């Protein structure tokens, strides 16, 4: 862990780029919170407003027409919790990124790369990230980065979770222990109430009912897995 922290503290400018409000928190809020704690400047691009999400809260409090605004506010709350000060909302339509011109999408990413000049980019792993928006935006990120001269390209920490993905891309080379910011991470997840309440409530009930199982229950939240992509 100490070593991991040393590695992380190297990065001072970070760009996280994901398609949906909550992608930055599920499985990733820990790393981002650690970076913030180390004093890094983090920019988050959220390409859609998650307009077409299926979860409306449990019990539901959103409908198809109100969901996007609620999710944007949840994202702003999560950014405050994590320590992300630069949030950029593109407000493209959920589920449609895969049908945009890939070069145009990459242009948009390139513009942000030029503005932010990140040393490290958090994204999904193209083809292994289940949701078509995840894959499409991740491909645009790789394409945009590949346009820069080799020595100027940032490192990419990518998330993958498709079935059996490890058989093809191997095991993640960064398994981060985010225990020291576990509370921050859980609060970031809580901020995305419309999308997370069903999980968080269950977790909290289990924690209260089975205090002896705390370690087991929280274990999945302590570890975050990233694959380095060298473009």
């Amino acid at each position, binding site marked *: 862990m100490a070593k991991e922290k040393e590695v992380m503290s190297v990065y001072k400018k970070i760009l996280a780029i994901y398609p949906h409000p909550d992608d930055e928190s599920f499985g990733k809020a820990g790393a981002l919170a650690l970076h913030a704690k180390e004093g890094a400047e983090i920019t988050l691009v959220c390409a859609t407003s998650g307009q077409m999400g299926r979860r409306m*809260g449990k019990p539901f*409090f959103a409908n*198809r027409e*109100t969901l*996007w*605004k*609620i999710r944007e506010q949840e994202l702003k709350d999560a950014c405050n919790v994590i320590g992300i000060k630069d949030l950029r909302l593109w407000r493209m339509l959920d*589920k449609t990124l895969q049908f945009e011109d890939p070069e145009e999408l990459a242009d948009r990413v390139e513009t942000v790369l030029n503005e932010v000049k990140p040393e490290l980019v958090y994204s999904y792993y193209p083809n292994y990230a*289940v949701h078509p928006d995840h894959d499409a935006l991740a491909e645009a990120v790789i394409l945009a980065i590949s346009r820069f001269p080799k020595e100027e390209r940032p490192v990419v920490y990518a998330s993958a979770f498709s079935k059996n993905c490890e058989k093809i891309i191997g095991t993640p080379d960064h398994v981060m222990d985010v225990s020291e910011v576990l509370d921050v991470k859980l609060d970031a997840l809580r901020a995305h109430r419309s999308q997370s309440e*069903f999980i968080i409530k269950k977790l909290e009930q289990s924690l209260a009912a089975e205090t002896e199982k705390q370690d087991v229950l929280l274990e999945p939240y302590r570890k975050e897995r990233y694959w380095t992509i060298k473009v």
Partner: protein
Amino acid sequence: MWIEAYTHYQTNAQSKKEVIRMKSIDRGEVQQYLDQFLNQDLYYHLETSNGSYASLESEQQMSVCAFIRNGRIRYSRGTIAGAGPYRVGLKLEEGWVYAEGLTDYEMTEKGQLLLGGYDHEGRIGIALELSRHPFSV
């Protein structure tokens, strides 16, 4: 409109009693709203989905989803049927629009008729919405 919903959502964040504007379908009321839209050029939103993660969650499932956002429509007969969840059929000059599994509805201040089908987890499985003006994109 969303501000009102969001204020409720914030105000009630700690309370168990949620204020939501969608309410359980009253078949008679929805029928009246459907009649108000008869023989007019309208925008519609129609969707159904079992979620992008359906195939990840179970190998027996495949992810299916379809939506039409701001399609144009004009119907000469619009009917709600069933005892809940409900079905709605719209008879077009040269075809039909059909939605099944509708549980909740709302007529917004903007004059949008929102019909949604929510499951026990609060997930929307189907939505049919009608409006004289385009929905936000």
